[in-house]
């Protein structure tokens, strides 16, 4: 028994032969994803052949159960305590300000034997949450965002359910980080990237490093694109376009990290819809001519009144409120 490598040519001892069989049964059963009643019947039949089989099986079964303690060694991808490293409180008026800005929900899935921890992080409107992962990666969630992690299974993966997040991923060639967004996936090849998911549209901006974007039209048909810094992919369920942005444009997209929205030749409609992401109050523009006006400058994301002032003072537009709706019109 001291020779733990199975040498096919060596004749196994009487008991050793039984133990090899017992171990095979245990491994088959414990590692199988689809242990059927038929399998179980076959095992039962083998066990009922002799007490020798039973003795070896029970002993190894106990051994296997003890090795399950090793699960405790699992270093979750995200800190187990999963305290956000920091979080910012929204200054926007309304209920959002009352909530803690980052919400963590944990749960578990059982997938065969694999215990997977699912941790979900979410931010309300106006929220901003920083996460520091055990592997050194950092993730920031922007307003109204939901991101869940699947740990274990030797994978680093997350699922952006909605909203926008910036990923600064420590590269590990053997365990790539995979982000799922809808049906699409982004695989990091050592990367800093920004992902935004909104109304079925996914936008991925690569800031540093390399990443691969897979557009999933169907399970069989995936279209893969390697991204280099400055590339911005916009994908819908079945189409994808890649454009390049300047460093400045990319940085402007990250204004939210400092609580800023940076506009440059931005239409009033776009500016309003950006602000609306961060605030309970929603700006509404119905007039197409008003919508097309363009503005520039920095706005605090939680300061709706600054944009309204611009509209009134620069463009001479009128502003009227009804509940949480703010209408800008001529």
């Amino acid at each position, binding site marked *: 028994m001291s020779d733990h490598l199975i040498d096919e040519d060596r004749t196994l001892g009487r008991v050793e032969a039984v133990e090899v069989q017992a171990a095979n049964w245990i491994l088959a059963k414990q590692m199988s994803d689809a242990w059927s009643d038929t399998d*179980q019947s076959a095992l039962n039949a083998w066990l009922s052949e002799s007490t020798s089989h039973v003795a070896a099986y029970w002993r*190894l*079964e106990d051994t*296997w159960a003890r*090795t399950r303690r090793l699960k*405790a060694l699992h270093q979750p991808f995200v800190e187990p305590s999963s305290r956000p490293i920091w979080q910012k409180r929204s200054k926007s008026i309304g209920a959002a300000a009352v909530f803690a800005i980052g919400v963590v929900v944990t749960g578990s899935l059982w997938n065969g034997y694999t215990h997977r921890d699912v941790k979900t992080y979410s931010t309300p409107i106006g929220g901003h949450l920083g996460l520091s992962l055990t592997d050194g990666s950092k993730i920031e969630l922007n307003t109204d965002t939901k991101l869940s992690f699947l740990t274990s299974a030797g994978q680093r993966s997350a699922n952006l359910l909605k909203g926008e997040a910036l990923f600064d991923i420590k590269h590990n060639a053997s365990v790539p980080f995979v982000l799922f967004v809808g049906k699409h996936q982004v695989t990091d090849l050592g990367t800093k990237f920004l992902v935004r998911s909104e109304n079925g549209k996914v936008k991925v901006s690569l800031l540093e490093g390399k990443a691969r974007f897979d557009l999933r039209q169907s399970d069989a048909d995936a279209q893969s694109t390697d991204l280099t810094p400055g590339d911005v992919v916009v994908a819908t369920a079945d189409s994808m376009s890649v454009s390049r942005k300047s460093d400045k444009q990319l940085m402007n997209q990250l204004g939210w990290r400092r609580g800023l929205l940076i506009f440059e030749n931005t239409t009033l409609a776009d500016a309003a819809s950006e602000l609306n992401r961060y605030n309970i109050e929603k700006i509404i523009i119905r007039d197409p001519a008003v919508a097309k006006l363009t503005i520039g400058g920095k706005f605090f994301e939680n300061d709706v009144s600054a944009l309204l002032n611009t509209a009134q003072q620069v463009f001479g537009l009128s502003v009227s409120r009804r509940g949480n709706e703010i209408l800008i019109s001529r």
Partner: protein
Amino acid sequence: MPDISEPDRETADTRRHPMTSREEEVRAWFIREVLPLEAALTRFLQNNWRGQANVADMLHDVYVRVIDAARRELPEATAPFVFIAARNLLIDRVRQEKIVPFEAVDNLEALNVAADAPGPDEQTIAREELRRVQAALDKLHPRSRDALLMHHVEGFSRRQIAARLGITENTVGWYLNAGIRLLADILHRAPPTGGRRR
């Protein structure tokens, strides 16, 4: 059955394929009370056996006898029951092999069978157990160890382990098989106090 707090597969299986309650009782008793005696039992056999059959085989035969007897009736006190079964087995073997003087097997009292002292608390046991399993793993072939760790810690399937180690699934099966069997020897035969194997 360990880890009952977790919805593990075994409990689910027991529901699906109920063992007879008697057999389940014997199994639970065997794991709870007999297996912890393995270190002492191995020492006992080593000290009292000069025959040809190897000690691991004899140990297995003791288990077979003990399980068969327990199916008829669970003993009041496990340790004496197991050691008497071991002694009887030795006596039978001595007769068969006609080599060892009889008195060699007559010092049952000399055995230091651990008394049922109150144990440490659950958490300490769990930590100690984890350390033991880890220490035991270090004695395995590196590939057996890696395969077991990948499965238990990372949740890898056999196929994933094969891909990661760059070997076939069959070979992974061998490493796992050998690993789990050697682990059984190390874990069960090391004295519970965390001393050395054998």
